[in-house]
């Protein structure tokens, strides 16, 4: 550990302040000694020592990141939550008691913010959204098997009576609601549902 500290110190000295990546130099949590260092830094930070505070925040980032990486999927999300945790540490610093271990206090905040993030993520159906850059669509034009399947579906659709075909197109392909299809076709809503049901039955028989 002593050797590692020396390595970090020499790296620290060789970098100017503006070049220095604040959180990557100090070592991640490894032992009780590290926790004692954090306790002392937190105590100094509570008394207004911004250098100690900078060192503390810098040294906890890898620990927070590692803890979050077990449960969050992408590095972008992890970095966002790391920032949230840093802000929370700042807001809650006065609740830390310097005679207690620092890591449980930090991990409680990290876990709380991760849960907060996941709650919002699932509430916004974030887990069901895919960014446009990562859409994984099959290439129907070049894949001969898919193209054949599409042709079969098109043929089956063409064989349907005109009214059923129109309802299937509006409801299932263009994505209109039952009420909108009812307005467009002049059928009642229940008639639209019945027509759709019959059309699907026929398609099922033809494609079986």
């Amino acid at each position, binding site marked *: 550990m002593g050797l590692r500290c020396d390595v970090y110190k020499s790296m620290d000295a060789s970098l100017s302040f503006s070049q220095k*990546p*604040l*959180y990557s130099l100090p070592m991640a949590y490894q032992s009780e000694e590290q926790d004692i260092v954090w306790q002392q830094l937190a105590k100094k*930070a*509570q*008394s*207004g020592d*911004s250098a100690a*505070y*900078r060192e503390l*925040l*810098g040294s906890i*980032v890898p620990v927070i990141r590692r803890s979050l990486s077990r449960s969050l999927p992408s*590095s*972008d999300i992890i*970095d966002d939550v*790391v*920032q949230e945790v*840093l*802000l*929370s540490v*700042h*807001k*809650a*610093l*006065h*609740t*830390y*008691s*310097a005679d*207690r*271990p620092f890591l*449980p*206090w930090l991990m*409680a*905040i990290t*876990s*709380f913010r991760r849960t907060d993030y996941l709650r919002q993520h699932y509430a916004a159906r974030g887990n069901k959204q895919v960014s446009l850059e990562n859409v994984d669509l099959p290439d129907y034009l070049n894949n001969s098997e898919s193209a054949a399947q599409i042709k079969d579906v098109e043929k089956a659709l063409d064989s349907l009576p005109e009214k059923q075909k129109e309802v299937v197109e509006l409801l299932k392909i263009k994505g209109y609601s039952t009420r909108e299809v009812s307005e467009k076709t002049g059928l009642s809503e229940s008639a639209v549902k019945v027509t759709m049901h019959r059309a699907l039955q026929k398609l099922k028989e033809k494609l079986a």
Partner: protein
Amino acid sequence: MTNKDDEINKTIHNLCGELKPMGCFNPNWRAALWIILVLTYTVAVATTIGFRENIAHAMNRGEFVFELLLAFGTGITAGLVTFWLTIPDCERYKKFIAVPVTLLAVQLVWMFDRLYFEGMGDIRENWLSHCWMNTALYTTVPIFAVVLLVKKGATVMPCALASFAVLSVSEFNWIGMRLVCPKDNVGEAYFLNFLPYVVIGLLAGFLAKKLFRW
């Protein structure tokens, strides 16, 4: 370094710039302050409204004193747990949650025991008037005080905190109601004087996450 690394570094710089010396948050002191405040307030309100005329007789009854002591114990322990949950590393206090919960369970068993053997008893017709007014009077200041004192902390268990705060406020003010309300039958003492706290508890449950957000 990536953009995200830059952002994290910038955040750290900004936070260091905002740093000011701060006093340490001590949940025990705050709990003691709140308990003293609520006890003083409850006695003050009871004195203002006027103690029940049969208070001396009631204090000689074992079951009445037992009920008061049980409520007092639940109120004190729930108050302590409330303030212990205001710090992020409250893990070490979680084992104490069993104390108010057990006392509350004893209280509920006692209530159902009395309900089974004594029945509901007479409930006055104008129950919505002064009983609920007294309840509102008893609860207002303790609720504001506990919210103000708790908001200074940083809880990671807002719902549990709100539940224990409501339990503590309820118990102290139930004691207050027992000191002024002359009727001790189950209908009056446990249902009529207890329902307002259930309403407050439900509201607090809905508001807890927003109220104690930090």
